[in-house]
């Protein structure tokens, strides 16, 4: 995964998407890559795993060689206009940003293209070896990866259209972009992941995603159930394990991350994920 330039990490809410993003970013950093970790959705998830307080639009170095940023749509838009479209001196920031926000709320594709466009622009800038995005959850991810196409349908020509076409090519290029779907072996996350895969298959806007299954229990290689907590814990473990097998069979993942027992803080979770990724790659 880390030999790509852009990793888009998505998954159903609550499956550990931000922790996986942070773990991958930490591993890339450990390997000496110049890394940008980007929180695309609402603030909180990713920054908690780095333990360095709230992130801002301007990338901040949270570990040597690892920068992290928070997507802020109005900032990204101004950057896009001034740098990409070369429109200088935008007419009074406040009114402009709000008017555009109104557009972005109602017109399909606009808010998504600004968000995904920022990630692509950071890739093109060559300041980073890899950009790892903590992307919106699977329920919304479709409209983000399809945004260049949506805009192309809306805008017949000109510079914006050309940009959208460029973005579409970069997302579709499997040497450049990889999508990662995080899931856990339970009913709702499995169903939602399968639906997302099917949709991506039909739209063909990105290559088939890599699947990471989180919170995987090891098989307990003992069938006995002694009395007391010793046997109770064995029983629960075996029952949870076989429930997990059912869902893993329906959706076999490329990578499995273990259930983390007794881990307290998001920072510890991310560090453990990083170790796990290192051990398996």
């Amino acid at each position, binding site marked *: 995964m880390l030999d790509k330039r852009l990793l888009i990490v998505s998954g159903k809410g609550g499956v550990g998407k931000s922790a996986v993003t942070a773990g991958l970013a930490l591993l890339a950093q450990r390997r000496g890559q110049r890394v940008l970790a980007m929180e695309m959705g609402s603030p909180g998830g990713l920054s908690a795993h780095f333990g360095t307080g709230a992130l801002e639009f301007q990338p901040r170095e949270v570990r040597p060689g690892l920068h992290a940023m928070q997507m802020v749509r109005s900032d990204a838009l101004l950057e896009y206009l001034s740098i990409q479209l070369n429109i200088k001196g935008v007419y009074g920031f406040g009114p402009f940003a709000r008017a555009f926000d109104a*557009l972005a709320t*109602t017109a399909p594709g606009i808010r998504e293209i600004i968000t995904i466009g920022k990630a692509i622009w950071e890739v093109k800038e060559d300041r980073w070896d890899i950009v790892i995005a903590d992307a919106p959850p699977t329920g919304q991810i479709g409209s983000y990866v399809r945004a260049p196409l949506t805009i192309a349908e809306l805008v017949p020509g000109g510079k914006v259209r050309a940009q959208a076409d460029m973005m579409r090519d970069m997302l579709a290029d499997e040497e450049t972009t990889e999508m990662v779907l995080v899931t856990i072996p339970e009913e709702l996350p499995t169903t939602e992941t399968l639906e997302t895969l099917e949709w991506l298959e039909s739209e063909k806007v990105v290559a088939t995603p890599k699947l990471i299954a989180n919170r995987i229990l090891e098989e*307990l290689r003992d069938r006995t159930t002694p009395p007391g907590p010793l046997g109770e814990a064995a029983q629960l473990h075996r029952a949870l394990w076989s429930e997990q097998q059912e869902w893993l069979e329906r959706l076999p993942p490329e990578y499995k991350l273990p259930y983390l027992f007794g881990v307290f803080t998001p920072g510890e979770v991310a560090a453990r994920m990083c170790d796990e990724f290192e051990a398996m790659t």
Partner: protein
Amino acid sequence: MTTTLLVTGAGGVGKTTVAAAIAIRAARNGLRTLVVTVDPARRLATALGVTNLGNEPQPHHDEPNLWAAMLDASASWRAVAVRHADPEVATRLADNEFFQAASEHFPASQAYAAADQAATFVQAKAWDLVVVDTPPSGGGIDFFTAPAQMADLVGGRLLRWITGGPLPGRRLLFNAAGRPVLRMAGTILGSDLLERVAEFLLDLRSTYDGVSQRGREIERVLRSASILVVTTSDPAPVWEAIKFYRELPKLATTPAAVVFNRILPESWATAEVPKGAKPVLANNLMRWSTETIRQRDTRDEFSARYGARVATIPWSASPPNDLDGLAGILDDSTGMPWASFGIE
């Protein structure tokens, strides 16, 4: 009188299961009970006897006092247009390409649709208890802010942003298109896009009186509802629960309890490995024991810091797939504030 119980919390914590279990117990206690869910797991929907999406409550085939309804939020958003706009405008809205984008993009829209539908059931006065499994967006906070946000949206906030001034009549749209900001947007995105967006927002604004009046009715229902916040002991959902307690939405009463789901037996926290135990089992017990300690510390910290009443539901290995199984998850629960939703 109808008691309303709002079950909130992050996604993936078993919120829907908890809501269903409470409803079954209430029904078996003799309360006419309706459980309202959003997007349940298939086996849960089957257990509740609702197999097709639809906003109509269906009586359960073998639980006399139980009704269930599954909400379809996209249909509800359309219903807003149909209910509050002129027929002609309603048709135009429903056909509008921006309508769908707005309903997808506007974070409050699904929450509004659910709150609107839930309030309708409460106002029907046909049930003693209405249990609502709220949509997970914003950790449940969106549910309470949705009516006001929705009124604000259709009230023309976005339209004012586009026109840059007071609420315009239809002809003022041309002035809007003349604003430098928007001329630029027009150059970038095609000149008629803005006009189409503004026309859509004008149509939407015509529903303002209806939506804001309805919003106040929904808020009355929310203000008198009991609230349960459901979470597991994992950092992410606990964080959402903390956010709910910290920010306590204006319309929400103090939650009756925070319910920690998937709780391990307290005795495991101090369990010692018996002499002669097989290493593989001993190792397993130790792992689950550290997990039990982590869970307990998380709960203790939560109640100490936020003064919350803490309830627990044990971790059951296989998710329940029938009514008895669902009701059973509460058999070994602790601290459930039954009285606050009228259950003995």
